[in-house]
């Protein structure tokens, strides 16, 4: 957390008794209290979706196209998948303070476990279990040597371990097992999942309000429904976890491990539990991520990890809804920048291919600006970040 803290004038050390009125204003607009955060999250969501829905349906020309693109991206299954992975990252970083720079590695393990198992003839349930198990073992292997060290070491180990995994997946020698660099086509593992659908055939667009998609299909409403349902379940799980004394312990560890140790808590065990749980969310996100597309190791590289981080910081770390809001707005914002710059900037300056890259550049700049000017994100509590330990 040390990267995103601000210096404040320390309260006067020499004053003892009833000093320090007015350091905090409870109505400080920068720091919404927890109960107002839910309200804020719902408001932002409602306003955002109302705007893109109405513009998408009624606005003519480019504006309508951009709005429809944003809407499509916001509700896509892959956005939901990334949201689940970010929920896991939020447990790592937001609540426990673990710098996991390899969340994409956890996603890839989940995806590989799922797709390889089904590809090689195992039932889907086994595939899901294999994916989660792989992430569990990965968390254990990473955690045992690093969790007793300072936080930075975990960052180094996770980012390199995730890359090592990706390169192993790409090995030509393993082509029959992992599909090597080509990966595994979605048709090899998708059938059992699509077969579960009770949405029937045909298409659905809610009277022209939503994009026209197949009800079941490869990338239709069925996979979206399941993906967002999982997001909701994950949010509830996280809420149950972090309101408990266990969640309090996580935040305590984030603040000062030694203090928690001096109170007789097994810090290593708690950090390991947090690493595993966040990793399992990551693996689940990975499974959902490949359902509407194919299993390609290069799709889950470092950049996906950094998207997760940007979205987490955008939404607000250490909040339950922050990851979801961050994921939705992050992908929508990228589409918006790309569409707007494509429409406004003449092709002689920036052509369509370049606007896509420009959008990614903006993402990087946005991450920097966020960390500098609004480290608590949209929903975070600024007061939690105000004190530099």
């Amino acid at each position, binding site marked *: 957390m040390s990267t995103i803290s601000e210096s404040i004038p320390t309260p006067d050390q020499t004053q003892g008794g009833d000093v*320090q009125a007015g350091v905090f204003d409870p109505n400080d607009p920068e720091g919404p209290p927890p109960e107002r955060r839910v309200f804020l999250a719902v408001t932002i969501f409602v306003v955002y979706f109302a705007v893109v829905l109405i513009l998408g349906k009624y606005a003519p020309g480019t504006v309508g196209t951009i709005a429809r693109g944003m809407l499509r991206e916001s509700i896509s299954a892959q956005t939901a998948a990334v949201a689940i992975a970010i929920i896991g990252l939020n447990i790592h970083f937001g609540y426990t303070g673990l710098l996991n720079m390899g969340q994409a590695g956890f996603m890839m393990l989940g995806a590989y476990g799922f797709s390889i198992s089904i590809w090689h003839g195992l039932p889907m349930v086994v595939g899901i279990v294999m994916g989660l198990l792989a992430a569990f073992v990965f968390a254990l292997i990473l955690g045992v040597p690093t969790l007793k060290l300072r936080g930075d070491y975990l960052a180094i180990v996770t980012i390199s371990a995730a890359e090592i995994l990706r390169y192993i997946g790409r090995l030509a020698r393993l082509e029959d097992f992992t599909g090597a660099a080509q990966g595994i086509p979605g048709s090899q593992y998708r059938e059992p999942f699509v077969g579960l659908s009770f949405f029937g055939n045909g298409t659905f667009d809610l009277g022209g309000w939503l994009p026209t998609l197949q009800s079941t299909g490869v990338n239709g409403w069925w996979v979206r429904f399941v993906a967002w349902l999982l997001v909701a379940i994950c949010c509830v799980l996280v809420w149950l976890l972090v309101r408990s*004394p266990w969640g*309090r312990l996580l935040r305590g560890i984030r603040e000062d491990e030694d*203090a928690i140790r*001096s109170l007789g808590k*097994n810090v290593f065990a708690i950090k390991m539990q947090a690493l595993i749980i966040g990793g399992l969310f990551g693996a689940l996100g990975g499974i959902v991520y490949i359902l509407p597309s194919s299993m390609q190791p290069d799709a889950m590289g470092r950049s996906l990890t950094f998207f997760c981080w940007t979205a987490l910081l955008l939404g607000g770390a250490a909040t339950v809804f922050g990851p979801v809001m961050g994921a939705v707005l992050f992908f929508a914002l990228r589409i918006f920048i790309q569409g707007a710059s494509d429409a406004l900037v003449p092709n002689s300056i920036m052509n369509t291919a370049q606007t896509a890259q420009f959008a990614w550049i903006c993402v990087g700049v946005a991450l920097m600006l966020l960390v500098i000017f609004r480290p608590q994100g949209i929903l975070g509590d600024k007061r939690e970040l105000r*004190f530099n330990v």
Partner: protein
Amino acid sequence: MSEQTAVTGTPGPLADPEARRALMADVSREPGSSKPDPILEVDHIIRNFGGMTAVHVEHLEVQRGIITALIGPNGAGKTTFFNLITGFDKPSSAKTGAHWSFEGNKLDKTSASSVALAGMVRTFQLTKSLNRMTVMDNMMLGARGQRGENLLTSMFKSTWGAQEKAIEAKAIELLHRFKLHTKKDDYAGSLSGGQRKLLEMARALMSDPTMIMLDEPMAGVNPALTQSLLGHIQTLRDEGMTVLFVEHDMHVVRHISDWVVVMAEGRIVAEGPADTVMSNPAVIDAYLGAHHDTDLGDDSLLSDEALEEMAAEVAAEKAEREGETA
């Protein structure tokens, strides 16, 4: 058992100063002397940092139920010694006979958290209040054996809700006692330095310790708050808790401690009741230097005899020290 003592404040048998004086009257004033009822026994703890020996304690016993002060000038190794016996650091002599036990239980290889669970809870010289959590959350973290801290049961509030309420009530009672209850929903980072010290002490008490170890509780605290801190420490003692605290200000120590252990250059150089230990030559030596009463501006010191005398003294001291460590 100690739950009662921590909160309700019934005076223990050692609340009477005469009783404490009588108890310690027969104890030898030698470093490492044996106590009538030691709660903590330490043997042969050495900690080297490179070539420097920061701590070298051969034997120390801490008497149950009284306030023991561990004093010494800066760099004497008090905090390092504290870290060693609370499991935050490992002695260099870990494999060559370092032993310490608390209430008869060996602590040689236990971690910091097990030491705390054994009933020996410490605070830190640089206060470790959890600044970005509320005062109440800080307090709640202190309680031991919380069912809700188990990952499997934490998701079901029915398993820990009742316990949580009980802990909360206890926390509020302790906050009242330390006059922090009005701040219970504030972030700990917004408290003043002295209030953070109080909060840290209150948090340590949440775990019902049998012995509380305070590392420089008075550092950076203004005189008025020092008074109330000292009062709190005495109350704890009167309720039957054992207190060991580190301090380098002798005057603070004189007021409240029943027994004083003096450290210098990593060793224990003297022990005894506060009033007598202050006049011990070894203590004066440690604080002020052996020649503190010599006038350095005196020309007669520059005579050859005087210089030779001093050189001989230094050599003898050196030889003695080398003989000890060999």
